[in-house]
């Protein structure tokens, strides 16, 4: 793997710089090679071409009630392998609740969530993560006292197998997993563009870095499906532009992405298909162009274009 991140058998590190400085010194060709390596580390063992377009996850008649409030009302939709699916809808439509149901935070009152033909049933949250669903949070929720890299490695630990006793005794598997986790963690941080802050506490990162770290941490769990909840909130238009590039890159690496976002330019610009919710019901589904012109969606959500809506 990447020469920059491999293990102890490497010769001594250059005194100055480290990876960040090194990347800066690279020629375009070297850079391309390096990026390929990063991509390989970010998305190992991914059969990108295989099975694209299959159903990855299906919401089947999912209903969720909070007391008298029906937050999700017989919601049906599918997420296909390899796509970027947008989930939009007015405030309180049930978008975040969808995420919460998919990740086991809430159990549906009726209906079920099916991942790769297996219903999630009563699985615990951490088991669902191990099955391959990862997410970010609408209100950033990082492990603030941990470093940036450690945050990502916690995500990677979801794929690790060392037992408590194994860790106690430092078995070889532990060493291998630790090394791999650090390599992959660094690669992911580079991938989302915050490798230079790897050793800082997460809580000291600027807002935008924190959102990117959330994405890296979720990716570290090697999910089949990555769910992003308003990743662009609090970004200015220029920053949103960069984020779109990142999301595309993630998909390019073979991840399937489910995206909640209120910023229409971003949603329309990056998604393959869009599902629209209102009052817990699906009111529309289609490619961005269809959704943009769907009168029901306009009425419920988009509103009449104002002077220069962003």
């Amino acid at each position: 793997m990447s020469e920059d991140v491999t293990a102890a058998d490497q010769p001594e590190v250059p005194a100055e710089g480290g990876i960040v400085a090194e990347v800066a010194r690279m020629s375009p060709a070297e850079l391309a090679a390096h990026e390929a390596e990063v991509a390989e580390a970010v998305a190992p063992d991914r059969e990108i071409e295989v099975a694209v377009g299959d159903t990855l996850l299906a919401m089947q008649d999912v209903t969720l009630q909070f007391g008298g409030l029906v937050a999700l009302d017989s919601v049906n939709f599918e997420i296909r392998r390899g796509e970027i699916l947008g989930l939009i809808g007015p405030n309180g439509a049930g978008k975040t609740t969808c995420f919460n149901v998919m990740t086991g935070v809430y159990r549906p009152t009726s209906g079920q969530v099916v991942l790769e033909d297996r219903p999630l049933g009563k699985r615990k949250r951490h088991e669902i993560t191990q099955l391959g669903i990862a997410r970010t949070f609408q209100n950033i929720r990082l492990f603030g006292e941990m470093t940036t890299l450690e945050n990502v490695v916690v995500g990677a630990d979801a794929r690790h197998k060392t037992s408590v006793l194994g860790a106690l005794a430092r078995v070889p598997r532990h060493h291998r997993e630790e090394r791999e986790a650090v390599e992959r963690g660094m690669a992911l941080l580079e991938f989302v563009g915050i490798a230079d802050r790897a050793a800082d506490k997460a809580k000291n990162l600027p807002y935008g870095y924190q959102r990117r770290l959330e994405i890296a941490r979720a990716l570290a769990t090697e999910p089949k499906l990555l769910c992003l909840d308003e990743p662009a909130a609090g970004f200015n238009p220029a920053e949103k532009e960069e984020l779109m590039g990142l999301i595309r890159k993630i998909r390019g690496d073979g991840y399937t992405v489910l995206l909640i976002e209120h910023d229409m330019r971003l949603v329309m610009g990056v998604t393959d298909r869009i599902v629209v919710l209102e009052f817990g019901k699906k009111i529309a589904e289609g490619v961005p162009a269809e959704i943009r012109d769907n009168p029901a969606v306009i009425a419920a959500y988009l509103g009449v274009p104002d002077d220069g809506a962003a």
Partner: protein
Amino acid sequence: MALLELSDVSVHYGRIGALSGISLTVEEGEIVTLIGANGAGKTTTMRAISGIRPLSGGKITFDGEDITKLRADLRVVRGISQAPEGRGVFPGMTVLENLDMGAYARKDRKNLAEDFERVFTLFPRLGERKSQVGGTMSGGEQQMVAIGRALMARPRLLLLDEPSMGLAPQFIQQIFRIITEINQQGTTVLLVEQNAQQALSRAHRAYVLETGSISKTGTGPELLADPSVKEAYLGVA
């Protein structure tokens, strides 16, 4: 005389300087917008004005009075009200109680019913959910509570920190309409926004904050037309 005046205000978090000597004014009756990238210090400016972040230098006057050392809760009594970043909805209070907290410092409690009505007309969702506890509301709904609550104070100066964050498009337009409307009814507004396009077009004047200092100022249209602003904040490359 300006309603609000910051002169040479500095704020530090520990050793990190977040604001290094900024000066700005807000005249009575204006809408003033503050734009800037993540981490530029916009929220810090708001916190300094409302008094929950002490200054490490400089002076703030409100309505001619030096409020630099005034306790935060007394500034509310003077008429400064804020819808904070991150919403700050009281998670264990109902929507109604949350809104009522907005009027905590108000002396004239007789017009309260009218103000409740105004908020409910603005955000019908809140009217439907009067007794839902704040903590269980969706992100956008919480944002509505936060804005509604700030309106309940009937302040002289309203501080809005990214009011459009997490709101659906139709509300974003509505929020900006409302801002203009209450401004016309006499409330002075200081607005922080990432949605610079909207914010600048509604503002009388605006400041651009860059890494803790003010780099530009001008009327809304002026800044909208400024190429560097366009590139950095409007996403028009």
